[in-house]
């Protein structure tokens, strides 16, 4: 028990340090832009006094680390700044957008994981036979597919050639789907997003289960007379830890990397939010989004590590 607590403590410490580093990178991004950050915000003909005044107002005249600390302080208190473009608070907008992304990402994750696990397990138990080969092909296709292209292809098939589902948009006003129409809008993007997780998890589950099967204990279980179903259950329990870790990672990727699919489907999620910010050079929004998305990813990893440690005693160091 104590070992567990110490492990979690260490991991927490580690995570805090990483979050610190992440914030530095996110903050430092804008200073990668050649030139004065202010030049982006103002038209070039702006009078000098205005430029100087804004410099002071935004704090650009202070040394870098002071700016960083000030920004960090604001972020930690929940204030991610104000959008240069819309003038709205970043935090509110971002949370909305993030919510929309989650509406996509979570079902996609669930779909991908369950499909991947089922197919992977089936393939492992039928090692060498046709089913295994077919599955391997599907999995590796899922992995190598540019998912944004898949989205387009699906739209072509299901919204153009055979107009059954909407081609884009979220329908309604955002948030959880409340109508049949909104659910229909979900289908294509969720399927698109689920491809890569399915491929990754499927392959991982297949190879892990194969490894477990090749050990002696499943045969021992069979000799003891356990029914097939129970044996599968035990095998899966052993194969679970690495799969869970990767699932967590995949969920993080889905949220952080959803921008491409969101662009295809015109889905107002955090990815599109960031996309807009990039094109408008809306620095505060960009910084805030990057920090939040990356932190989300880090926290998911932390949770995954903790859950893994709970399940698999070998993981605790």
């Amino acid at each position, binding site marked *: 028990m*104590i*070992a567990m607590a*110490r*492990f979690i403590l*260490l991991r927490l410490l580690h995570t805090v340090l990483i979050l610190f580093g992440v914030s530095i990178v996110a903050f430092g991004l804008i200073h990668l832009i050649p030139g004065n950050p202010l030049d982006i915000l103002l038209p070039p003909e702006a009078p000098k006094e205005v430029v100087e005044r804004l410099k002071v107002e935004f704090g650009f005249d202070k040394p870098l680390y002071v700016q960083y600390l000030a920004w960090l302080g604001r972020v930690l208190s929940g204030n991610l700044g104000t959008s240069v473009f819309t003038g709205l608070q970043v935090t509110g907008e971002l949370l909305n957008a993030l919510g929309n992304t989650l509406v996509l990402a979570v079902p996609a994750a669930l779909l991908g994981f369950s499909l991947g696990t089922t197919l992977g397990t089936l393939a492992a138990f039928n090692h060498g036979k046709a089913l295994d080969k077919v599955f391997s092909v599907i999995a590796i296709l899922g992995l190598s597919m540019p998912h944004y292209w898949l989205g387009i292809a699906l739209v072509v098939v299901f919204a153009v050639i055979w107009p059954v589902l909407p081609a884009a948009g979220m329908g309604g006003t955002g948030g959880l789907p409340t109508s049949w129409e909104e659910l229909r809008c979900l289908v294509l993007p969720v399927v698109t997003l689920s491809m890569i997780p399915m491929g990754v998890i499927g392959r991982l589950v297949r190879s892990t289960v194969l490894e477990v099967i090749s050990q002696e204990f499943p045969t021992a279980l069979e000799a003891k007379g356990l029914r097939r179903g129970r044996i599968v259950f035990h095998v899966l329990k052993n194969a679970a830890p690495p799969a869970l870790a990767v699932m967590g990672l995949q969920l993080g990727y889905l949220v952080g990397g959803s921008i491409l699919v969101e662009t295809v489907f015109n889905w107002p999620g955090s990815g599109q939010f960031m996309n807009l910010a990039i094109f408008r050079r809306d620095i505060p929004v960009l910084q805030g989004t990057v920090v939040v998305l990356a932190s989300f990813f880090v926290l998911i990893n932390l949770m995954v590590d903790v859950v893994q440690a709970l399940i698999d005693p070998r993981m605790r160091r």
Partner: protein
Amino acid sequence: MSEPDRPTDRRDRGGPSQPLLLVRGLKKHFPAKGRLFGGRREMVQAVDGVSFSLMKGTTLGVVGESGCGKSTTARLLLHLIEPDAGEIVFDGDGVGDPHGISVRELRLQMQMVFQDSYSSLNPRATVGDIIAFGPRTAKGLARQAARERAERLLDQVGLGPVLFARRYPHELSGGQRQRVNIARALALEPRLLILDEAVSALDKSVEAQILNLLALCGASST
């Protein structure tokens, strides 16, 4: 077989009465997998105060049950693991002393034949290269000279150089690999050879061959 007059090795420093190797109070502790912070750390006393002396021209056998620290001691002698305490004196010179000899100089005079013949050979290198590695890199021998020495040694341990020099470890049997290990250890012309259970992984018949080989080695060096 008549024994030639033992020539004195020109590296000899103190004459026949000075011990070749003198070990005093060697200690090594490993922390057991325990608490991360604070608490009492449990230590495994792998080697706790080992002392002995080895005279020139003699053989010292260290026996003990498995896990008693023989391998660790062997590694400590070569400074492959850092001792926690104790001193090692080689032919009158302290190892690691400012006035003594460095670990590197020690290793040029003291070599070891490892127990696991398979994992102690680089799977990506030929037998010839493995044996020549020491002389080439540590002694700066030219490639041709190092290769010739390797082939001579292969011959001496009974592996025809023509057949074996270009082979890879995975193509050899256990006994053959152990001979390669011995050849490799001899390549640097050490004054002291440490054998860490060199034959325990081999069949009896092969073991007999290797022991004969080692006896010959011992009989003709200082």
